[in-house]
């Protein structure tokens, strides 16, 4: 049985339905990431779990207990806020201990708990400071300490890294991950950053306009996106979406892309019977289009296609190449030491094993 369950949850603000029939389950110790563009309702959902916002309908169940009607402080849930929400007038120690103080925990016991948490987060030397005297990363740690000290059933994180600079963000991301490993905490984490989602989650929920698009492990979400929205939202640079049409050459059905200038095999992941003449969208991530030196030797189906190079963007480890064929542009990822320049004709290798096929009208992935 799952530890945390959200059942048929809906939320209306005025006539606007900001959350539509949300159903999520999470096992104990799981790390659930809610991801989606701004305005998709992910923060609203988090606030609903925290009890900071009334629901319109539905249930939230933690460990078999319905918590809908409980006051936020009685849900045994802790939250790390985007702005950290540290009390400006209190020291770090008082900030971390405030929840315990409100629960009437003895002073000595409180000090002990604060010390332990401070040790875990390596902020023991900061305990007497005020939030205004801390750096961004230190504030972040204090905010986590405030949540940790309560030893809650569930932790909520609301875009906790969005106020940090790029380098610190990567550091803290790793720390949150190891914290999760070490404490076995159950976590719900909101972000709009798909890399955070991929690296941290045991389970990702992709939201759009208040509705769940897909629930799955990071690998499932990345490799088998349920629809065009998920495919486009997860991954950077974004997945290539190539217009295609089913053709039949000597009895074998294939997909013709680039206005018929190339014909490739139907990916093996598709079992649907695709009739001749049907329009599809072939989705292939940039790493599925490479130079011939980077071809996966175990690949079942590949296709070599020549195209005009438009733009070359070296990132150091790889090089991203934008190329055009028959008015359609796509992005490929090639080895960093390949010599390639704009305006050249270059042979790209398409790995169809990694491709997915979508229905252009519904946007759903074809199975």
């Amino acid at each position, binding site marked *: 049985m799952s530890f945390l369950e959200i059942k048929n949850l809906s939320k209306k603000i005025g006539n606007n339905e900001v959350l539509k029939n949300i159903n999520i389950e999470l096992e104990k110790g799981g790390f659930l990431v809610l991801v989606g563009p701004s305005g998709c309702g992910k923060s609203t959902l988090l*606030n609903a779990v*925290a*009890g*900071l916002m009334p629901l319109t309908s539905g249930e939230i169940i933690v460990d078999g207990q319905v918590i809908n009607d409980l*006051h*936020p*402080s*009685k849900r045994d*849930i*802790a*939250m790390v*806020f*985007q*702005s950290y*929400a*540290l*009390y*400006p*007038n209190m020291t770090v120690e008082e900030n971390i201990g*405030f*929840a315990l103080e*409100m*629960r009437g925990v003895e002073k000595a016991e409180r000090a002990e708990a604060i010390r332990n948490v401070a040790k875990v987060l390596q902020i023991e030397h900061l305990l007497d400071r005020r939030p205004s005297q801390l750096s961004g990363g230190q504030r972040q740690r204090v905010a986590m300490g*405030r949540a940790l000290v309560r030893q809650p059933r569930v932790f909520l994180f609301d875009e906790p890294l969005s106020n940090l600079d790029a380098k610190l963000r990567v550091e803290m991301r790793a720390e949150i991950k190891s914290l999760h490993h070490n404490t076995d905490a159950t976590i719900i984490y909101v972000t709009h950053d798909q890399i955070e989602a991929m690296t941290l989650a045991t389970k990702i929920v992709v939201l759009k306009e208040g509705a769940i698009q897909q629930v799955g492990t990071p690998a499932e979400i990345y490799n088998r996106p349920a629809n065009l929205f998920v495919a486009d939202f997860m991954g950077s640079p974004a997945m290539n979406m190539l217009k295609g049409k089913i053709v039949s050459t000597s009895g074998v059905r294939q997909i013709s892309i680039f206005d018929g200038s190339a014909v490739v095999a139907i990916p093996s992941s598709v079992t649907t019977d695709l009739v001749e003449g049907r329009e599809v969208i072939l989705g292939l991530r940039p790493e599925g289009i490479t130079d011939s030196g980077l071809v996966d030797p175990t690949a079942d189906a590949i296709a070599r296609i020549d195209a005009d190079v438009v733009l070359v963007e070296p990132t150091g480890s790889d090089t991203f190449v934008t190329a055009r064929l028959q008015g359609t542009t796509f992005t490929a990822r090639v080895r960093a030491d390949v010599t390639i320049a704009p305006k050249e004709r270059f042979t790209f290798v398409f790995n169809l094993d990694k491709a997915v096929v979508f229905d252009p009208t519904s946007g759903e992935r074809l199975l």
Partner: protein
Amino acid sequence: MSAPSDTVSAGSARTTRLVIYTLLLVLAAIYLLPLYVMLTTSFKSLAEIRGGDMLALPRDPSLDSWFKAWGEACIGVTCEGIKGYFWNSIKMVVPAVLISTVLGALNGYVLTKWRFPGHKLVFGLMLFACFIPFQAVLIPMARVLGIFGMANTTSGLVFVHVVYGLGFTTLFFRNYYEAFPDELIKAAMMDGAGFFKIFWRILLPSSGPIIVVTVIYQFTNIWNDFLFGVSFSSGAESPMTVALNNLVSSSTGVKEYNVDMAAAVFAALPTLFVYIVAGRYFVRGLMAGAVKG
């Protein structure tokens, strides 16, 4: 914005600076003149005032008129100076400021952090109340104070000032708390703090500046009030401003300008003192009172 610097030659730039400074100094002198005249007159003897020059420094400065204004000047039928009225004002101002500030803080807290349907209407009605001409409530208030036996009492004036100051104090605190992050309130709620705990432990410790602004604004306004004082009190119960006006405009006896001025300085001292000590907050209050916060 930093002022646009002139790109013209150094010589003409210097002339411009000179003109600017001269203009500002002349203007400053004009603004100071009435205060200067008020002060110098209060140190002069009546003979010197009649014979001499208003702008001249006192030849033989004396505090006689100050003592007279404080303890002997005749206001109405009593000749005990303005000291009683000064204390009347103090007794009126202190409780009125405290009560209206506390209520304003709580109102501002509710109106920003515990919103309920219709909170905008409630605030709008309280805000508009700041701006009504008090003539529109003068007659009913006089009747009601009479009915409750509070006419011509200090407590009556305290009540009136609290009632008609609430809008402003609420406005100040509302605008201040509006900018206070909601996430802090949410965090405190999750930590288990209730309505008053959040106010007392989280909001209030960060409210220092706005409390100073509100207290100064209310203090200045209530101390300086004349309309309510003259409408709802008389005789020995009047506040300072009313007594000053009675002293100055009384037409009996010899006109003692030096005593008038000394009394006026007494009436101005508390607010001037506050202004000098905490001018920054005073200006901020005025600005907030002009709504644009």
